[in-house]
């Protein structure tokens, strides 16, 4: 766990708390939050669980490991999740099926019979534990990259759309250039140049990912710029920046939220592809899926590694998508149901 990604986690947490306070203070947002809870309780609980696991996996300190381990292992910081699972002790010799009592190859009795909910992998590590370890990486990749992408894309897109002319030309040129480089190649090149840390991968994904949303924001702003209520605001003597803040941004808020969700899920999925290419992040679900490739061709088939990572991925993405969908309906007064 590097210093940078620790800072990231702290930043994300502080941002989350700040947002929650903002929501709690304003009546409008508090109502929206209540609405959201009423519509999607399950998805919210699921997301909260994922967040909890992510946070638990971010709080760690050195020491307190199993006795008799070597010096290197003793100096590694262990997170709460590590301490909960005690991975050093909770391992088998090699593969074992979910809830099995005997090892997969050879039929030896296991050290912890019936305790591995999703079996163990080739090194005997518990799959549930590994899937839990992937949560933090996924949340960081999805959340932090979205936080880089959306402000940049909004800034460029809205300004280009609203002011047009030179600014529009410049932004469009930048987008065209970026769009004409195969994004996967650019991604690989960026990761190669910057290295393979969490932040680096986030930045690389951000650089390749903002074009799409920028295009949407620009198009929507172009449409809004001609709207009569923008004319009316101008006739009232409202300045351009205020028009952007008060009339353009609120009208694309639903787009921002849906894009945040789509980009979040898209980015988590993109990381799987990076792992497949061998430049993913350590401990991610992508790596688990990548390693599970060979296991699928064995007989009898070893499916639990793949299943563990895929189900975790699927559940997280489904939850986020459902929340975003409901949130968009709630925020946009045009689709809001009467008589709340």
């Amino acid at each position, binding site marked *: 766990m590097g210093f940078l990604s620790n800072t990231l986690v702290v930043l994300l947490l502080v941002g989350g708390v700040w947002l929650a306070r903002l929501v709690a203070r304003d009546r409008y947002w508090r109502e929206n939050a209540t609405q959201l809870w009423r519509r999607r309780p399950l998805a919210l609980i699921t997301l909260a669980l994922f967040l909890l696991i992510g946070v638990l996996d971010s709080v760690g300190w050195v020491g307190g490991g199993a006795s008799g381990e070597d010096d290197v292992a003793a100096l590694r910081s262990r997170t709460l999740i590590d301490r909960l699972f005690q991975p050093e002790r909770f391992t088998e010799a090699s593969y074992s099926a979910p809830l099995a009592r005997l090892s997969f190859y050879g039929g030896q009795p296991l050290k912890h019979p019936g305790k591995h909910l999703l079996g163990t992998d080739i090194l005997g590590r518990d799959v549930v534990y590994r899937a839990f370890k992937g949560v933090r990486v996924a949340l960081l990749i999805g959340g932090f990259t979205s936080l880089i992408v959306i402000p940049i894309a909004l800034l460029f897109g809205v300004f280009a759309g609203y002011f047009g002319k030179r600014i529009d030309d410049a932004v469009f040129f930048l987008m065209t250039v970026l769009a004409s480089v195969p994004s996967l190649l650019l991604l690989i090149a960026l990761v190669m140049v910057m290295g393979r840390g969490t932040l680096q991968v986030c930045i690389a994904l951000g650089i390749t990912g903002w074009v799409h949303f920028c295009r949407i924001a620009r198009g929507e702003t172009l449409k809004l710029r001609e*709207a*009569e*209520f923008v*004319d*009316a*605001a*101008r*006739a*009232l*003597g*409202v*300045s351009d920046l205020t028009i952007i803040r*008060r*009339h353009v941004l*609120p*009208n694309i*808020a639903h787009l921002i939220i849906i894009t945040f969700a789509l980009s979040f899920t898209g980015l988590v999925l993109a990381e799987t592809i990076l792992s497949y290419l061998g430049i993913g992040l350590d401990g991610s679900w992508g790596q688990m899926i990548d390693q599970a490739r060979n296991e699928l061709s064995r007989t009898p088939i070893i499916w639990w590694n793949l299943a563990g990572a895929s189900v975790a991925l699927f559940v997280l993405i489904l939850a986020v998508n459902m929340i975003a969908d409901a949130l968009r309906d709630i925020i*946009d*007064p*045009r689709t809001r149901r*009467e008589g709340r």
Partner: protein
Amino acid sequence: MSAPLLSVENLVLTFPAETGRIAVVDKLNLTIARGETLALVGESGCGKSLTALAIMRLLPKPGRVEASSRIEFDGRNLLELSVPQMRAVRGGAIGMIFQEPMTSLNPVTTVGDQVLEAVWLHEKMSRSAARERVVELLHMVGIPDPRARFSAYPHQLSGGLKQRVMIAMAMAMRPRLLIADEPTTALDATIRAQILALLRQLSFDTGTAVLLITHDFGVVNEIADRVAVMYAGMIVEEGTRRELLSHPRHPYAQGLLKSIPRPEARGNKLLEIKGVVPRPGRWPPGCRFAPRCPSAFDRCQAELPHRTTLSSSQGAWCHLVEYEVHT
């Protein structure tokens, strides 16, 4: 007589075309006195809306106000103001309401907040004071239960109520001039009468002058003090409402009046003006109405008519009228 509140002199608006810039409004002169309601009447495409936008300096982009023009408002030439100065004039001294109340309000903000924005823009006050002012404004424009309507979204209001909200926004700073660009075109007849009555009453109560842009003589009859009839980028006749409605002199103004259905003329064929308004750039060299005029003669084809004074307030730009008056 004191100086007029607004005087537009020699206003020329041009748009680019393949053959250079084409004038869409040509040497237009217009004055509005304090507290007066002037109706600017004309068919679609005659340049009346562009004139209004030009007064607000909101002419859409390729369009340009030519340098010879003067728009004098309260002693200042609006065309020479800096952008921040002009912003203070908009919504401050001059308010404007638009044709489409359905789309003139931001759909994702409550109407109260939108009026609040208009109030806050030109006057610093506390939030609660501004809120009170908004409720007062909403009450003033005849919105029932203004406190509850404060937090309503535009889609929850009817067209008439939305137009009332627009009027409240435009009147927020007690402007000295209110420009209303076809304020009732998108509304049905009963609501139209209510909105016009509201405008008339507001103008009377606050002393705000109104520049009303319309194509409907019914509207003119309800509200205007003075009328200017526009055709193809020029004014063809001006006068008080009584003069224009009872004895218009320009053939175009006469034609417009005859084309209004009247109950006493039941059974007779409704008269129309033949042909359509010529497009800007295709204007004839002489009188612009000549090709459609039933009583055009040689001189009409050749030269532009000058103003013929008919009374202290009425004037017409027509060779025929000039001929009749001088003989």
